[in-house]
């Protein structure tokens, strides 16, 4: 296996995806306006009621959650774009070149790094405008962003898999929303989970999004840094081990 060559090829194709992203700027709406909108909605509509009148307290609690939720939502368009892209002639060209089969998929995921970075910057930046403040230090803030992006790049493979599986971009969106909504609401993203029924708490505890959000909260707001990060990375590894081969298989079957 020529790992260096594969990485170089993946970066070449990541560049291709970046060029395509930049050519269609509306593709950046979900990573810029969406976290802003969700922050505003939840802080000012629900915040007062949920945090006994203190919208600032709720903002502190919510922001890491919105980060996790937006990352999950953002992954949807990756599968959609890939689904539309994969049937185009240029993928025949990729298949006829002496490059590893997985390279076009890896390239597409790597290009998403830019969008995930924008999500983090927009969410934290707009949070600061609203009054959000980290209580740890900038180093741990960067660590929080790194953990979030690692998770995002792993979760992306679920979307890639769905993108290779179904026939149309619309179907990718439909399926992914069915997955993303329970994950983001059946979690600690929006509220403290102590009032949830036992069976739901059991789900929340294993929900990967809960772990990412907890890890990010710990890193931004000062908590016992460690176990939640461990769980997050365990989930990253699990997602990669399961969905990378599945996505590759789906892609090869599509030829």
């Amino acid at each position, binding site marked *: 296996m020529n790992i260096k060559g594969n990485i*170089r090829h993946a970066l070449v194709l990541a560049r291709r995806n970046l060029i*395509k992203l930049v050519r*269609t700027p509306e593709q950046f709406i979900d990573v810029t306006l969406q976290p802003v909108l969700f922050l505003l909605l939840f802080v000012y509509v629900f915040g007062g009621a949920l945090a006994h009148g203190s919208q600032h307290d709720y903002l502190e609690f919510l922001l890491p959650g919105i980060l996790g939720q937006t990352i999950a939502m953002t992954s949807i368009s990756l599968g959609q774009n890939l689904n539309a892209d994969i049937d*185009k*002639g*240029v993928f*025949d060209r990729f298949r*006829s*070149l*002496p490059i590893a089969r997985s390279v076009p998929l890896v390239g597409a995921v790597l290009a998403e790094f830019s969008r995930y970075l924008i999500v983090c910057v927009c969410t934290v930046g707009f949070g600061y405008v609203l009054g959000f403040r980290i209580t740890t230090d900038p180093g741990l803030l960067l660590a929080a962003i790194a953990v979030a992006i690692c998770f995002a790049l792993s979760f992306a493979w679920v979307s890639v898999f769905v993108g290779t599986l179904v026939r149309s971009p619309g179907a990718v969106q439909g399926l992914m929303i069915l997955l993303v909504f329970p994950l983001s609401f059946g979690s600690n993203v929006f509220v403290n989970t102590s009032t949830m029924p036992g069976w739901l708490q059991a789900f929340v505890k294993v929900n990967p999004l809960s772990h990412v959000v907890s890890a990010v909260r710990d890193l931004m707001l000062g908590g016992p840094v460690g176990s939640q990060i461990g769980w997050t990375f365990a989930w990253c590894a699990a997602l990669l081990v399961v969905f990378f081969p599945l996505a590759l298989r789906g892609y090869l079957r599509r030829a």
Partner: protein
Amino acid sequence: MTDLAIEATGLTKSFGDTRALAGVDLAARKGTVLGVLGPNGAGKTTAVRILATLLRADSGTARVDGFDVRTQPGEVRKRIGLTGQFASVDEDLTGTQNLVMIGQLLDLPAKRAKARAAELLEWFDLTEAAGKMARTYSGGMRRRLDLAASLVGRPPVIFLDEPTTGLDPAKREDMWDVIRNLVGDGSTVLLTTQYLEEADALADEITVIDHGRAIAHDSPHGLKRVVGGQRLTAHPIDPVRYDDLVTILSGVGGGTPEGNGRGSVTIQVDGDEVLPDVVARLRAAGITVDELSLHLPSLDEVFFTLTRTRSGDDSRDPEELFS
């Protein structure tokens, strides 16, 4: 057989209940053009996709430049260029970006990838459009960029799947010149087409396939001998002179003149030497025509002739008849 750049035996492929290939043999000697002639749905594209390692055959073997497409696909991919029926370029990238990307995927250093891109764009007359997105290109420009993209790595074997379908006649001639140049450089080309004229203009040998089977393999000359060479078609301005025209054409060609129902008459002829003779006879008879053309038989005529002349009994397996 080391002098064969492409060698396929007994390829079969089904998609669900549809049998795309039912046992096709193909062979192309190094440095020659193999024309694969057939109508839509004959299995041409499927055969190309198998040879280019994009699809796996259900059975049969194929070697490209000496390497087995099933067991050594990586080696095959290093040696082929593929230009698909639908231009396989990225529409959101510029001409240069498309070619540089391919170059980098073929492990050319950035500088050489750029140089190679510029060289190919120049060759294909795309230098002016090099910085524009491919989606703004005309059909002909896209095809040229597509072909350029398959040549970045100077592959010894090139697959051209209907490279001129949808191009207007002038653009088609341009494309033919490009393809002739490729072969001049020593590459082996497998070209699929729906036009006998195109296969005749470019190919050293022609395999005719239909319903997933090779029904004839011959040189263009040999094939034309079977299907009757050229046709001469004329259309009188005055419909009243139709019968006189038929009489005159009967005197120059072989077989019986056939009408097309719209006032034109077509007859098989031996070569273009008859043309001055026809013109002289028409003038002598005072018949003016608004169409007078020499052309090769259409694909329909080729199939009609191949099946008529070689089989008295339609129910027989065409493969037996042509072996």
